[in-house]
């Protein structure tokens, strides 16, 4: 750790994340599961705080590792300040406060309903099976609620920078399409069509089977049973008063994502299997006029140094064989990574690409986050500088 290199000097002015952390106030880390999004998000926030901009990292990663790496025993749904002493002890005196929180998806949804639902219907909504399906399994619902929380934090707090670590997205579209999908759930012609008789009657808990007697309802109920249909109808009736406030919020969330001071950081692994996904994600962000600050290729394996081979050749035979086998594996991995990076680079033009090497130890403490941030912010470049 070298605090001397901390100041964002002119050497770094052209570094994409230095620029982004300075100019933006929301950075959203996106990518598929297991690529190290959480580590990247935490490293960016740590760096911003050390450099003098107050920062919050908001994660959804249930791994205790992030909490531990920040020196906390655990993270909750509330924003927690990382004690300055802990940062100082790690040789990283903060220029501004650093906060972290772990988003609890279920709790955030519940709070959302509590804020927006008519008081007499809250309980009915919260206890419905359909609400559970909306808040847990409906594609895009986790992504949506994470963005909703982001909007809340932006509107009601004054962090210099919020770094949002998003849920591992199975399909890139889930993320950008989330507001629409959730809107669709709340406000759909279908519910009006199916519920028209009940809505006219205006009574909740009404036996809804004036429409239940229809041909279509009878046919569906052969599959689902009539009780399921009735329960769904009651649920829709209960949420039907929320449409307008929900629509308005979805528009605000959408606007925040495309705002001038918001940018995305696309975190990827250096492998070809995920290339289509990365390209698709990048294209979608651009099509939606959302700024991509950088593509971060995380955990890149560096090739062995040429001198490693000659040094290995001088070892006694048994040890030599083992070392050479390991060098060959490392070489093969590095070559694969190199190939993947070239592909990612060419598919994500003109977004700048940043490489973070694979460290021999997993990132598990402030020193590890700081080390990661040195690559993210361009103090160290791909190569052997850090390990020499």
């Amino acid at each position, binding site marked *: 750790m070298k605090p001397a290199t901390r100041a964002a000097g002119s050497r770094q002015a052209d570094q994409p994340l230095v620029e982004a952390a300075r100019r933006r106030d929301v950075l959203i880390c996106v990518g*598929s*599961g*297991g690529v190290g999004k959480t580590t990247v998000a935490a490293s960016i926030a740590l760096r911003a705080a050390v450099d003098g901009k107050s920062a919050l990292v908001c994660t959804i990663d249930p*791994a205790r*590792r992030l909490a531990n790496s920040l020196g906390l025993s655990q993270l909750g749904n509330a924003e927690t300040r990382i004690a300055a002493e802990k940062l100082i002890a790690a040789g990283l005196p903060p220029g501004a406060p650093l906060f972290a929180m772990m988003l609890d998806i279920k709790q955030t949804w519940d709070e959302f309903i509590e804020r927006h639902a008519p008081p007499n219907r809250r309980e009915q909504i919260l206890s419905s*099976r*359909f609400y*559970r*399906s*909306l808040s847990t*399994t*409906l594609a895009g619902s986790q992504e949506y609620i994470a963005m909703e929380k982001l909007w809340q934090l932006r509107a009601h707090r004054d962090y210099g920078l919020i770094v949002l670590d998003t849920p*591992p997205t*199975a*399909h890139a579209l889930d993320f950008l399409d989330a507001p629409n999908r959730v809107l*669709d*759930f709340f406000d*759909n*012609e*279908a519910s009006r*069509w*199916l519920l028209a008789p009940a809505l006219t009657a205006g009574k909740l808990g009404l036996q809804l089977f004036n429409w239940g007697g229809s*041909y*279509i309802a009878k*046919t*569906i109920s*052969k*599959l*689902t*049973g*009539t*009780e*399921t249909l009735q329960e*769904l109808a009651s649920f829709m009736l209960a949420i039907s008063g929320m449409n307008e406030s929900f629509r308005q919020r979805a528009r605000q969330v959408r606007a925040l994502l495309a705002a001038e001071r918001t940018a995305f950081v696309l975190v990827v692994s250096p492998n*070809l*299997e995920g290339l289509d996904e990365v390209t698709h994600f990048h294209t979608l962000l651009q099509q939606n006029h959302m700024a991509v600050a950088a593509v971060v290729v995380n955990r890149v394996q560096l090739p*062995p*140094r040429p*001198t*490693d081979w000659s*040094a*290995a050749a001088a*070892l*006694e035979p048994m*040890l030599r064989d*083992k*070392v050479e*086998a*390991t*060098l*060959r*594996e*490392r070489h*093969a*991995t590095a070559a*694969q990574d190199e190939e993947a990076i070239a592909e990612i680079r060419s598919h994500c033009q003109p977004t700048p690409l940043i490489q973070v090497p694979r460290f*021999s*130890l997993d990132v598990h403490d402030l020193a590890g986050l700081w080390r990661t941030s040195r690559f993210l912010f361009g103090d160290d470049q791909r190569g052997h500088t850090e*390990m020499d």
Partner: protein
Amino acid sequence: MVPLLDRRLLIVSGKGGVGKSSISAALALLSARAGNRTLVCEVNADARIGHLLGGPEVGAQISLLEERLWAVNVRPEEAMREYALMILKLESIYKAVFENRFVRYFLRFIPSLQELVMLGKILYHLEEKLPDGEPRFDKVIVDAPATGHVVPFLSVAKVIMDTVPAGRLSREASAMRAVLEDGKLTAAVLVSLPEEMPVNETIELGTALEQQVQISPQAVVLNAFTAERFTAADLEALRLKPSLLELAQGHALLAKLSADFREQLERELKLPVLTVSRLYQGRFGRASIEAIADQLGSMLEAR
């Protein structure tokens, strides 16, 4: 030797990104090679198994990949259609009702219905008979949804039985449940990686399957395993060569994590752990799957 391949239905699950599809493909290859007519099912996923086995992408229609080996991507829309047609008998009724866009919207939000029709389709193929009365498939291998989704997927039959009044649907659910809970017929295989989160999720999943779905996992496949290579004496001998020492220490760390996580999985799940070595051969494809199948084959009793 672990007797996995004597079950007719194998359900393969684990955290996203641990290599479920590769392990499912390798198990399917082994099963077919052992002479079984084998169907491998992906569940509403980006189809990968066809590519992994060196063939074209597999769609919603069952397709023959090679001798005795078929694959299908089970998706909710098609499964719903097949199921509805089975019940409604008439295509015209199906069209009138299910192709109504309001109805489509409606069905999407009914919890469990998608899972029910997909699981129903898989179990239908397990029971399906050829004209001569022989089963169409001897083995069905399911590349199941990832942890978090797999328990709702497999417990759908139970959920339906609990919530739907007696009738056609609950009879079907009851039959499905009997198949899943029959330990002689069905086994779950958990796939993991020697890393903290995947291992924790594997342990949670194993417990949840047993307690919530009454399906007993029979084995864990620990993928990308690194076997120990460098002894303490080796590391000592490299003391004065920092670059090689770092290389050897990196390897030793991976090996230690691999061994520790294997031990943890064995201890907490009380299951055999089959290790598959990390592969260093470029893009995943047919060759990788064959390499995995060879490793698994030496640990499994083929039937």
